[in-house]
């Protein structure tokens, strides 16, 4: 089923419901909340309206997972509305640290004059390049479009977050394929 709806609101809610369905079977039961201000919608973890991170337990200790996305509703030729990603931010923050150790970001329209890759990875990771210490926060490491399924898979496969169901791998594969084909990412 494509992420479409007869109204932008319906399309947005379907998207949010689907991601929550995947989350609850993989890493977190924390709920994404969607709201719209037409023609755009925002999706993020919220509690009492405030943005929060989902708590996940990794092999390194507890971390906060933030998933946030802005989409725009586009009316298709058959009078349905589909969603197009305007920006996403996926971050992982250790414990009560002040900043994420990893940030996957995408922005459809970078600021005027910005020449860096629209899809990139950043974080306070130190790189040694010819005797220079360079922070990954000062670079925009290209990534290509990163699906939220990829971040959840990273949490389970690499950070060893205990999956919430035995079918987590299938859940992520099916979700990824569905979005690749039908969501047009």
């Amino acid at each position: 089923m494509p992420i479409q709806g007869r109204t932008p609101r319906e399309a947005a809610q379907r998207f949010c419901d689907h991601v929550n369905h995947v989350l609850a079977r993989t890493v977190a039961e924390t709920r994404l909340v969607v709201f719209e201000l037409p023609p755009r919608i925002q999706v993020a973890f919220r509690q009492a309206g405030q943005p929060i991170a989902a708590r996940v337990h990794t092999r390194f200790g507890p971390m906060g997972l933030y998933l946030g996305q802005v989409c725009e509703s586009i009316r298709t030729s058959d009078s349905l509305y589909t969603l197009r990603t305007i920006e996403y931010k996926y971050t992982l923050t250790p414990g009560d640290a002040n900043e994420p150790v990893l940030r996957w970001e995408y922005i459809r329209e970078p600021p005027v004059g910005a020449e860096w890759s629209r899809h990139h990875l950043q974080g306070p990771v130190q790189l040694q390049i010819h005797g220079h210490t360079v922070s990954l926060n000062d670079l925009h490491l290209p990534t290509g479009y990163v699906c939220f399924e990829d971040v959840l898979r990273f949490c389970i496969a690499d950070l060893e977050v205990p999956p919430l169901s035995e079918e987590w791998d299938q859940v992520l594969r099916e979700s990824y394929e569905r979005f690749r084909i039908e969501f047009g990412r």
Partner: protein
Amino acid sequence: MTPLPLDLQSAIEQGELTLEQLRELIELEAKALGLTFDEAVHRAKERRLPHNVIGADLELLVQLLPA
């Protein structure tokens, strides 16, 4: 961050904000970062907000403002 007014919480849960409510939410999140509304919007567009959860969310919220 100070608790959101109940009507704003309700609007978020209902899934639809007015422009005024969006501005209110931005202002509250900006205040949590020690910024005014205008400062937050300016820094969001320049991607100079803190990278914590509120900063990340604020940058996304600014994308909903009319161009």
